[in-house]
């Protein structure tokens, strides 16, 4: 099985990936083990969203499905939610109506 952590809520799609996909709702306060780090989630994370599979340095390319999906805007610790606030496209700026939309804090 390609899940990581104890919760079995985090799915690794590709061996080269820097992100894990949330496949069951994660709640603020949940604890898990990601890449050897004990992680406490600080927010709810919805299914389909992603968290860091390892500590990612600012400026590093971030891989999902074996493909770079952008670069880290800041240092992203293992287990942290990855979204508009800490990942940017290397192709074109992502426009959204309102970033609070995705309950990114």
């Amino acid at each position, binding site marked *: *099985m*390609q*899940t990581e952590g104890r919760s*079995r809520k985090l*799915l690794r*799609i*590709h061996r080269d990936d820097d992100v894990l*996909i*949330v*496949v069951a709702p994660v709640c603020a306060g949940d604890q898990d083990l990601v890449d050897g780090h004990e992680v406490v989630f600080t927010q709810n994370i*919805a*299914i*389909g*969203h*992603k968290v860091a599979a390892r500590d990612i340095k600012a400026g590093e390319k971030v891989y*999902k*499905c*074996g*493909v*770079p*999906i*952008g670069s880290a805007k800041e240092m992203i610790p293992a287990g942290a939610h*990855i*979204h*508009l606030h800490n*990942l*940017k*496209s*290397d*192709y*074109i700026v*992502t*426009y*959204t*109506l*309102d*970033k609070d*939309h*995705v309950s990114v804090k």
Partner: protein
Amino acid sequence: MSPSNNSPTLQGFLRSDGRKGIRNCIVVAYLVECAHHVAREIVDSFRGQSVHLIGFGGCYPNAYADRMMNKLCTHPNVGGALLLSLGCESFNRHRLAEAIARTGRPVSTVVIQQTGGTRKSIDAGKTWVEQALQQIVEVPRAPLHVNELVVGTVCGGSDATSGISANPAVGRAFDMLVEQGAATIFEETGEMIGLENVMSARAVTPELGHELKASVEKAAYYYKQMGHASFAPGNAEGGLTTIEEKSIGAYCKSGDSPISGLIKPGDIPRKSGLYLLDVVPDGEPRFGFPNINDNAEIAELIACGSHVILFTTGRGSVVGSAISPVIKICANPETYERMSDDMDVNAGKILRLEASVDEVGEEIYRKVLEVASGAQSCSESLGHQEFVLTYKSFDPIGPACLPM
């Protein structure tokens, strides 16, 4: 684990060009919408038998439609063809009939105006199909190896689950097929915007890489002219952060193999490997959207020789196709529960953590072999034989597109 341990030799229908079919059907092809009804009446009287309806509705000539019909009527899954002409349309029925006859397949043309109208044409067509069905039973069988298969993939009715379950699983199945020497075809350049550099790096030559990149740029321009947005706010809500990430959904069906070529509708890969099918017309947009629906893409994959189509869906598509079986891979576990009669593979298991991407990839690979050896896919057993062909225009591919 290794697919070589379980890649059996199948039996194929041997055609005069050396290709082998996994089906042996008669196609009834109307050459203008005015002949559609007669063609359908003929096909309907052979319900449950291998008689498929295809056709081109337009009355004005179109080189792309000509080529598509030629490639479809001489597809290895096709044993013979009946052409239905009204009599005054622009489609060159003589050239098509001659091309089919040259392959040794039984072919006949019913011209409705000459035959005496609807009823007589239906009767004449039915009589011909009856004898053609008996004739094609005699088509020689020959061992068919996995390395002779051409497999295409398409996605439709996608949702947020498609890109994280069914599509990566198809990518694994594609890797296994390529490893076994099969040719695999992926497409949807319009949904790969942002990944053109990543994709180009996988090309077997730098020149091909340049062509791959150009095909995505062409798609980006074309869709912009069509007013097609790339990244909608709803995508971010579903957890997608960048255009690259969104494009992964379609792109990851290609797996990890090197990309051996860029083809256009009707180009048939003659060697093993992974090919990108460029479905976006060349030149300024003229006839509207590149493909009006999923079946237009499926028809193009089949015209490129695909024996089988792997169709991934999250929201739940039900379509099949004329000529080549469609295997449906459902990405969303809830959709699968609701529509399981239509789904061949439940990739939603990945999201329920009941199977890994690799395991579902292997399941898809095995399903391809099962269907290639004659087992019906769900859409086939339900009688789905959708077909669409519209106007388009393409320039031929350049020399850099097929380097091997």
